[in-house]
């Protein structure tokens, strides 16, 4: 018994306590799935599969999986955001989903009850910021979770080439005033994320605090509100997705041809380090960040 207890303690202090291996999918909740789907398609995603029992569609681009959840119970969260889509979940790849989930609960995470139907996967989850959820997925190497809960969309090739080698770079989270220390403690405690020094910055929006995932495969940016603006606590949320690309210029050019507009002001405009898409549907924008191929 002692040996077992010691082993568990030792594991908890490892640099990657949940054995995280990147992002499996990011989910938007919305009551306007077609409108959001059109934005995603202009961003280079394609719908590749539909959920067997819910109004949920999987979009794909290279290694990026993006889910639009329009199931009425889940889409309700977007109603509070004025009908705009909200980033409602991020699923992390881990070595052992049950173990990752149990570890997080032991450390003080809020459990999310599963609503899996018969024959569907029960993907364990905890509550994240602003009503979002963090899922833990361990079946991503030998087979895909989508082959169980989803039906492929006929005639669509599920292997969608990424725009100029794009991949998930990270997630931007808006937080309340003076909440950086709190949220950094949350991600460090539960997931083993590490703070990146303030001098080390990526992209064209170098604000807030930046953390690196324990697996080193993605970043998490925490941004406090502009002190001159009014802020309501309920506005803490996952704000936007960061997409990494080895060639920002080529990616911007391709996306512009597909109808995506970029923020082009004097201070903020596409450059080699990155670019920011104009907000669509009231809340949806993507940040391109230069990565070394």
């Amino acid at each position: 018994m002692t040996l077992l207890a010691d082993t568990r303690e030792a594991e908890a202090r490892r640099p990657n306590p949940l054995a995280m291996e990147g992002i499996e999918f990011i989910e938007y909740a919305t009551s306007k799935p077609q409108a959001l789907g059109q934005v995603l398609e202009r961003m280079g995603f394609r719908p590749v599969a539909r959920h067997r029992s819910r109004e949920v569609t999987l979009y794909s681009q290279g290694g990026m999986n993006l889910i639009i959840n329009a199931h009425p119970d889940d889409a309700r969260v977007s109603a509070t955001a004025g009908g705009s889509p909200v980033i409602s979940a991020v699923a992390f790849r881990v070595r052992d989903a049950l173990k990752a989930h149990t570890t997080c609960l032991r450390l003080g995470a809020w459990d999310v009850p599963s609503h899996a139907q018969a024959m569907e996967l029960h993907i364990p989850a905890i509550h994240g910021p602003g009503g979002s959820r963090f899922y833990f997925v361990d079946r991503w190497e030998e087979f895909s979770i989508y082959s169980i809960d989803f039906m492929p969309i006929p005639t669509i090739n599920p292997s969608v080439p990424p725009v100029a080698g794009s991949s998930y770079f990270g997630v931007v989270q808006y937080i309340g005033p003076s909440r950086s220390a709190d949220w950094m403690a949350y991600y460090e405690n539960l997931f083993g994320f590490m703070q990146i020094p303030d001098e080390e910055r990526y992209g064209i929006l170098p604000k807030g605090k930046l953390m690196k995932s324990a697996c080193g495969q993605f970043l998490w940016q925490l941004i406090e509100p502009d002190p001159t603006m009014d802020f309501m606590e309920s506005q803490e949320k996952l704000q936007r997705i960061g997409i990494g690309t080895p060639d920002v210029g080529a990616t911007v050019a391709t996306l512009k041809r597909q109808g995506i507009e970029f923020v082009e002001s004097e201070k903020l405009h596409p450059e080699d380090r990155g670019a920011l898409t104009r907000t669509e549907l009231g809340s949806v924008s993507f940040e391109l960040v230069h990565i070394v191929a």
Partner: protein
Amino acid sequence: MRLIDGFGMDTISLAGPLEAKLEAMRNAGFTQVMLSARDIVGHPGGFDAAVAVVRASGMRATGFQVLRDFEGLSGHLHNYKVDIAKSMLQMCAAVNSKVLLVCSSTSRHATNDLDAIAADLRKLAMLALPLGIKVAYEALSWGRSVNEFTTAWDIVCRADCPNLGIGMDSFHVFASKTELNAIEELDATKIFLVQLSDFMWQEAPTFEERMTTARTFRVFPSEGVHSNELIELVLRLEAIGYAGDYSFEVFNDDYQQLPLPVVAERARKSAQWLAEDVLHRPLPIPTFPA
């Protein structure tokens, strides 16, 4: 901005319905209130109605009390207390309180291992974190392992979590006779709540005496016999840079059978004494109609 804005009353000092308590406080000039879970769940209209009353009052919640006997348990007892804590946190968030008060455990089933206690409080702080709630851990003077603020501070340091700090209650500090110069060891930004009260006895040496006095016969600051210590306490807190709220945690059986405005007026005098005579707070700048 009023002179007594940094001070608030606790609902536990007054008898009667929540609406009447809040009105009496507001009429006495208070803008904040320390809420007790009992006042919220005991409302005749139910929980939601009580939350609506608090929100409509326009008063800011100083904090929400109280989670007891949480830390140091194991197995099913721990799981049970985590469930209770989650419910308390949800109530705390519903009344828009940013601070949950947690009192040190009196349970003989709890461990006295300070690292285990720290781990439990860190877990509680993690549960509170997404809700934007800070956890104020307070040493009860009859707590089993933790009965002085110095030990509570030790545990908060061990847990090392930004939203976990200490709550101080002058009654418990005086009852346990902790040296006030230990305040210098504290980090003012990790003191999330200071509760003030006095009492009429010079000494409360046993746990039983402390409990009885604490629950039935506390008085407002300036009304008891420890005014000098109370002055020293708040001056030392101000000296280390404490800029948070002071709330009057006055359990008193006599006040429970007096008209609410009478008790609230005693509280106002006490706040006035602290603001003006003790802390020499600057008078607010008068505002003139445009």
